[in-house]
């Protein structure tokens, strides 16, 4: 990993070290290392095909790297021990780009599924917890609907409710803003920030939505050429490294300044 000004994070929740991954002849990661601090919002950025989704899938243990190690709260998801991967996954929730809800089941059943599978909760408890989670993402009265009957923004929020229903420590979000209109982007942004603040969740979000990333992130991870550049938004937007400025664009500093002003007011 190359950090913009050297400071390593003290308490990494997810650690990716020296990961190499190739699909056939295409090398996605050459030597990727980055830490995701506990309780922070990290945003993984990069152009299309830079490997954002692939990185999240590696962290979740859905893909195995060719070399290197990935640990989630101390358990390796890059290893071959299924028990270790399962332990790591109990800490993880994942929001997929298109929701990945089971399309033959209602929204209620989708969100209730992990509870039914992994807890001994009774019907009443499950119903209560599911509606609480749906309410916390601003969805009410959609329990009986099927996933295809929801709009894109609502679907994303229902999937978020499913991702957090087991109270994970870490939530991986793949492109939570893509394909949404500005009000919905703002809404998801607000939800993620709220989850992070109120529950202390570690968020690892992939996005190529530069403005919202600069507003939201505690740490930015820029994927480029199979490696990563990490730093907080302030550092990165001040940088003169052409790889960074080219990607973040000219408005980066303005976004960071706006955020600082808003935070000062609050």
């Amino acid at each position, binding site marked *: 990993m190359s950090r913009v000004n050297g400071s390593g994070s003290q308490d990494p929740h997810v650690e990716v070290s020296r990961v190499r991954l190739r699909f056939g002849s295409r090398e996605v990661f050459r030597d990727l290392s980055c830490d995701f601090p506990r309780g922070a919002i990290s945003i993984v950025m990069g152009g299309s095909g830079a490997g954002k989704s692939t990185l999240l899938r590696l962290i979740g243990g859905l893909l195995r790297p060719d070399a290197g190690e990935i640990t989630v709260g101390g358990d390796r998801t890059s290893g071959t021990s299924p028990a270790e991967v399962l332990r790591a996954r*109990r800490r993880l929730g994942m929001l997929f780009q298109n929701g*990945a809800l089971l399309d033959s089941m209602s929204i209620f059943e989708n969100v209730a599924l992990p509870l039914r599978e992994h807890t001994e909760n009774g019907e009443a408890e499950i119903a209560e917890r599911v509606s609480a989670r749906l309410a916390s993402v601003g969805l009410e009265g959609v329990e009986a609907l099927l996933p295809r009957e929801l709009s894109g923004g609502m679907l994303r929020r229902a999937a978020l409710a499913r991702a957090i229903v087991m109270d994970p420590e870490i939530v991986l979000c793949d492109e939570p803003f893509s394909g949404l209109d500005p009000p919905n982007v703002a809404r998801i942004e607000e939800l993620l920030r709220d989850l992070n603040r109120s529950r202390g969740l570690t968020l690892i979000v992939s996005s190529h939505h530069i403005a919202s990333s600069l507003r939201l992130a505690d740490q930015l991870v820029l994927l480029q050429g199979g490696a990563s550049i990490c730093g907080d938004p302030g550092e990165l937007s001040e940088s003169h490294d052409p790889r960074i400025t080219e990607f973040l664009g000219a408005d980066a500093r303005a976004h960071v300044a706006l955020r600082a002003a808003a935070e000062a007011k609050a």
Partner: protein
Amino acid sequence: MKALVARLGRACIGFVSGLGAITRFAGAIGVVVLTRPWRFRSLSRQLYDAGALSFVLISASGMTVGMVLALQGYNTLTRFGAESSLGAVVGLSLIRELGPVLTALLVTGRAGSAKAAEIGAMVTTEQLDGLRMMSIDPVDYVATPRALAIFFAMPLLTAFFILFGILGGYLVGVNFLGLDSGTYLASLETSVDFRDDIVAAFLKAGIFGMLVGLISTYRGTTCTPTTEGVSAATTSTVVTASVCILVSDYVITALWGV
């Protein structure tokens, strides 16, 4: 020449490793079947889908096959003056051979391909990865109920196929060709043996059910996550399962003489 050998080698390695993978998959299903929780609700839904909804297709096909058998059989038998054995000819060919094999081929086309496409579509929309991330094993949650449903449905559907086939043979033989109804039934009754014929039919049906259930769910879960991947998984399910049915039919007949 070298390229040809290399290609042959690669095909062989691919075939053997595929065989290994599907065996592991079968093992995983075996473990799921033996351990709790047993997903009876999901199984009964799949059983309805693969079994009950195939009923009309199977019974109509059985009926037509029985009718054709009676016509063909009658034309041949009259040459030897043996039309009184029509019941035996229709019944035995249905029970020993055509019932299990044709039912298996029809179930492959209807339920096997549908299950492969359904699971394949779940793969492309990341639904299976979604399950994995919730620590739910897709083999347990998705594949096993579907494979088991096909396994259980097969003998039942085979029985209906045979039943409707015999009925179709009766209709043509008795009502159309003017055979005596008692003669048809008596020749059927005396020639069919319970152990050698009926049990053997169910044995075949069980093995075919296992093959179709395994192949379709395996091809679905290992589908490449693209639209083409889904269509390839569906096609390969139908082709592989059909060939396996025909080959194993020969092997079973040769080994056990049924």
